[in-house]
């Protein structure tokens, strides 16, 4: 039997290993831009689902009609793929012109010179309809690198059908504390005979959670200089609370939380009617309504302490790449999306309750159902001061937080040790990016 070819093939197989080893290089800007008199094609990219793509493409069509000289090519991806693609195309100096940006990545891109200073394109892109707080959410080192599309606010989404079914009264959200929340959740679990859990999830899976728990105690996740300023105690309190929620049966098991994370918000425990309450952004209520088919209500998050903990979170931004050859046209397009009622009539509140106040006023009378509920809820909230934008190097905070949360909830480590380690690791990433 002649087996020696196999030996050679095995060596050749080593070559396939070299597929592991692949990598990429990196941007600049000029003075006040002008519109070109020749036809221009812009590339626009965003993350999101098919519905968002449909609306955005309609808005693009309306824009092209209004500005026949500018053609727009839209590209969209899911969240993970979006950031991979944006990093690699930017590295290859092939970045799309207009980018949908997130709070987590804003400073990471801006600090590294990948974004265009929008104040240079003032002529084409007005900002007067945004209040100072909203504008600040798009600034890094006092430069306006991005404009917020919409804002969201933390809330507790409540499935009122389940409350009615099991005869539990909906608590007063003006005064309730985290202890009240746990009590109501436990009552729901008990009265349902374990069929449902009162609460889906526990704090520690989203970057907003440590922010909220730090702000309750008068602190913040990051200080003005972009360093980690959360006290270990805030994290310990948050995780200890979550552990009690799980062990009492008020909340779902840790493994169910892990499954919810991969299933996504519209397929998780709450969305499938197996829990009656969940922390979510007010803007998610429409998607949750469609998923549950139940009556939902937005309540203010429970609160311990006196500091105003809630905050307006920019749901996302529009930004222009510093590599764009056509910043004036790009700014014109962003202006259409954010400031033009014609654009707003198509996009409505899909990307969040508009941060542009005039546009919000323009849309408000026509809002119905959950969209109206989300807007009404936001008007009820009195937020504290805006948190600092996630600093450069901190873009990985969410998976990092989830990892520590899972270690705590699966009892692999104590809240105290996890708090210290989390703060150290997060600060380490920020220092490394400096």
């Amino acid at each position, binding site marked *: 039997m002649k087996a020696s070819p196999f030996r050679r093939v095995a060596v050749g197989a080593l070559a396939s290993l070299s597929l592991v080893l692949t990598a990429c290089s990196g941007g600049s800007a000029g003075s006040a831009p002008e519109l070109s008199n020749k036809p221009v094609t812009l590339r626009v990219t965003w993350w999101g689902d098919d519905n968002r793509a449909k609306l955005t493409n309609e808005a693009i069509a309306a824009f092209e009609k209004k500005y026949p000289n500018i053609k727009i090519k839209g590209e969209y991806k899911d969240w993970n793929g979006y950031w991979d693609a944006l990093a690699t195309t930017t590295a290859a100096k092939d970045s799309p012109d207009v980018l949908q940006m997130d709070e987590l990545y804003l400073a990471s891109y801006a600090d590294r010179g990948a974004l265009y200073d929008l104040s240079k394109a003032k002529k084409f892109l007005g900002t007067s309809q945004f209040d100072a707080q909203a504008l600040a959410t798009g600034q890094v080192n006092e430069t306006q690198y991005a404009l917020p599309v919409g804002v969201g606010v933390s809330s507790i989404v409540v499935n009122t059908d389940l409350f009615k079914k099991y005869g539990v009264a909906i608590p007063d959200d003006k005064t309730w504390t985290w202890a009240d929340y746990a009590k109501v959740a436990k009552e729901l679990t008990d009265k349902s005979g374990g069929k449902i859990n009162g609460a889906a999830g526990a704090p520690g899976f989203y970057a907003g959670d440590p922010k909220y728990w730090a702000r309750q105690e008068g602190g913040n996740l990051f200080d003005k200089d972009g360093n980690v300023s959360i006290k270990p105690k805030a994290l310990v309190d948050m995780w200890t609370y979550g552990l009690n929620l799980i062990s009492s049966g008020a909340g779902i098991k840790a*493994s169910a939380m892990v499954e919810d994370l991969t299933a996504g918000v519209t397929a998780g425990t709450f969305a499938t009617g197996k829990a009656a309450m969940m922390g979510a952004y007010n803007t998610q209520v429409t998607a949750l309504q469609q998923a549950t088919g139940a009556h939902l209500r937005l309540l203010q998050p429970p609160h311990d302490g006196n500091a105003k903990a809630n905050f307006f979170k920019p749901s996302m931004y529009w930004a222009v790449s510093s590599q764009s050859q056509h910043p004036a046209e790009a700014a014109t397009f962003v202006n259409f999306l954010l400031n033009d009622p014609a654009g707003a009539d198509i996009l409505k509140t899909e990307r969040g309750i508009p941060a542009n106040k005039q546009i919000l006023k323009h849309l408000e009378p026509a809002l119905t159902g959950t969209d109206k509920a989300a807007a009404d809820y936001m008007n009820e909230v009195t937020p504290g001061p805006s948190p600092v934008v996630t600093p450069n190097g901190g873009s990985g905070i969410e998976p990092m937080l989830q990892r520590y949360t899972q270690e705590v909830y699966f009892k692999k480590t104590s809240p105290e040790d996890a708090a210290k380690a989390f703060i150290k690791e997060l600060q380490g990433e920020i220092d490394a990016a400096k």
Partner: protein
Amino acid sequence: MSSISELRRLRGSQRDTRQQNKAALFFLLPWFVGLFGITLGPMLASLYLSFTKYNLLQPPQFSGLDNWTRMLHDDRLHKSLEVTFTYVLVSVPLQLALALGLALLLDKGVRGLAFYRSVFYLPSLIGGSVAIAVLWRTVFGTDGLVNKALALVGIHGQGWVSEPGTALSTLIVLNVWTFGSPMVIFLAGLRQIPASLYEAASVDGAGRWRQFRNITLPLLTPIIFFNLVLQIIHAFQTFTQAFVVSGGTGGPADSTLFYSLYLYQRGFGQFDMGYASALAWLLLLIVGVFTAVNFWASKYWVFYDD
């Protein structure tokens, strides 16, 4: 080149050999284009990047051995090595044992061999795909098929992929399930063992087990060796399954943090491409060492009759 020298032996003609050489080079051309055009350049670039601080968006800065010394104190790297080694050392032997076992059964002349061969091969084709990883996540979920089956016999199962204690095991099962490609190679190898050897052995009174021990296994060692090397390299590079099952996190609690997944997180999640390049080269070294040891050890157990 050895196949070419064999050809020379067989044909004994210089001109033929030269023509064969040309033909071989011609057929290898696409591979050479790929190697020099696509693979080699980025490989060398990544070797350079492994000695730099590089965040993708700004030009790399030379940083000497920083990335390499950092590895010594990187707890998550050590965790990812632990996960990956466990995966390789458990799943590859199990997979090959299953592949060999089924190949032996099929070789005994099952009716409809072609059908079974195709069916068993199918998982190998699709096992590395996103769709199968999604399916796996669902099947091993709390409300998944596995738990529904267990419930029939009165066992209340847990969420297999969402508990840190069992998440890696489900991925090991997934890899074992893709036993089809080594099985097909085993089958081909079994077919090449001359029947006369078995006849002679049974005349001498050797039973089934003796025949397997003393004929099948020794003559199959080159094939076992080949499959072993290939599957180890393959297992070290596991990415898709872990990425999809854990949503890119390597969770729950880093229990499925495969090496390549960690590399990806550093490079693309943290814009830490210099370090990620160093990690890629470390993986190459690790797999290189594994393969070298394999080749060295093969002298002692692989039997070539040529």
